[in-house]
């Protein structure tokens, strides 16, 4: 087989790579239930288990985007259900601020999504992953940092006094 059609095929069959950060008590157990209930969902997610959605530092999300992940899903216990009483309430404040900031700088909110999934909601987990995968696929690959160069690259335009 020739190389070129192979590459075209590869480009067309691009599938997003999505990081799913799941809380240990609810969403991770929910994802387990999805599997044990034999519900199928898109294989685009890579799951990162955290003790609580309150453990999710906004840095994790920023770094995932920086590393080229096409999308991020953060999921924790429903409000009121947190194993540590209030981890998800605290997390929710961070998330709302971060998601608004990301939108402000021009990152589509569909790239970074949030959900509450309980341990009994295997079907909801499958549905959410499908939605996120569909959204991110529609957005295309994460090219936010494509073509980036060092700021001190002599070939880049002189920045001096630009803002003065």
């Amino acid at each position, binding site marked *: 087989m020739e190389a070129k059609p192979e590459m075209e095929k590869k480009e067309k069959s691009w599938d997003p790579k999505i990081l799913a950060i799941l809380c240990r008590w609810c969403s991770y157990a929910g994802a387990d239930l999805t599997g044990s209930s034999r519900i199928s969902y898109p294989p685009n997610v890579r799951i990162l288990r955290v003790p609580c959605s309150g453990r999710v530092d906004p840095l994790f999300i920023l770094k995932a985007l920086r590393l080229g992940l096409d999308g991020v899903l953060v999921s924790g216990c429903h409000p009121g259900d947190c194993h540590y009483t209030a981890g998800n309430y605290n997390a929710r404040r961070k998330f709302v*601020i971060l998601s608004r900031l990301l939108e402000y*700088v021009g990152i589509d909110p569909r790239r970074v999504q*949030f959900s509450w999934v309980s341990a009994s909601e295997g079907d909801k987990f499958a549905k959410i992953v499908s*939605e996120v995968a569909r959204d991110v696929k529609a957005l295309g690959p994460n090219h*936010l*940092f494509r073509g980036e160069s060092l700021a001190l690259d002599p070939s880049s335009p002189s920045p001096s006094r630009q803002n003065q």
Partner: protein
Amino acid sequence: MKMGSQDMPEFTPEKIKEELTAVAARLFGEGKVDYFLAYEKGTVPFKTTPLIARKKEDLQRIWVDDYFVANLSVYLKEIRGRIGIVIKGCDSRSLVSLLKEEQIKREDFHIVGISCPGQFDLRKLARAAACDPEELEEILRTSSGVLVRANGREKTLPRPQAFLDKCLRCRYPKPLIFDTLLSGEYVAPVDLENPGAADPATSLKDELRGKTLPERWAFWAEQFDRCIRCYACRNVCPACFCPRCIVEENQPQWVSPLPTRGDNFVFHLMRLMHVTGTCTSCGECERICPMGIPLMKLNEKMAADLKELFDFMAGVDLDKPLPLRTYRQEDPNDFIK
């Protein structure tokens, strides 16, 4: 034109300087402070430099003019001991923030407040006078605005074109906390012709109106591309007080020190998240940035969001909990699936 300056007392630096030196001398004399933070004359015109007075004799160097823009509260994280400090209204918000974050103890400080008449924006003035900031010869507050002389030409500017943007939005020219308040009370040089400009949320909305996400990213990608990661914004920031910054953490290394767009993006947004609720939009980061990155746009977006979502304004209320240290059951939830 409505200027609001008619009823304002004239700002008299000489008098303030005299009063300030007397207060500081008294504090040293009574043995109440080990250090006194004030301003001294800069080495170039229209610049005032921070002064850390260690003994009474250093007080001779105290200087007050129209350009005491630096926020001295940034030094409080490095100097230990009993400290006297001069602050303006906006700097007092940084102090309140530091107290809220339990970084400093109120009893360690003697706060000398200056009611601020607004600080000139030298870049704006130079632009208006069509010269380099170094070529400005004279800047005078007048009853009708601000008079600028450069290269032998004179121009009188309306006040919004002469002051820092943050001053045009200032709600607290008078310090919120102080032990001694120097004489003179001023109103901020608010743009009376254009009251919407006084509200960061309104100006943000104007700025974003009709901008698509790719357009916004194109703008910010260009800003992040220019950052050289000198960390001046972090070092000058009173709200950045971690003894070890995460950008210098190398096991694991969360952010590469290389100034690439991606790592700059992570750095700036992460820094903003770290100062959520502590950043008072004092504008030092933007003022100090050697690459002219408009960091205040990020700070003010954050400030507008905190106001809208949690009815929180940084550094104005000692008793109100920091927004990320508390929660309400009815916090916004509609963005979560």
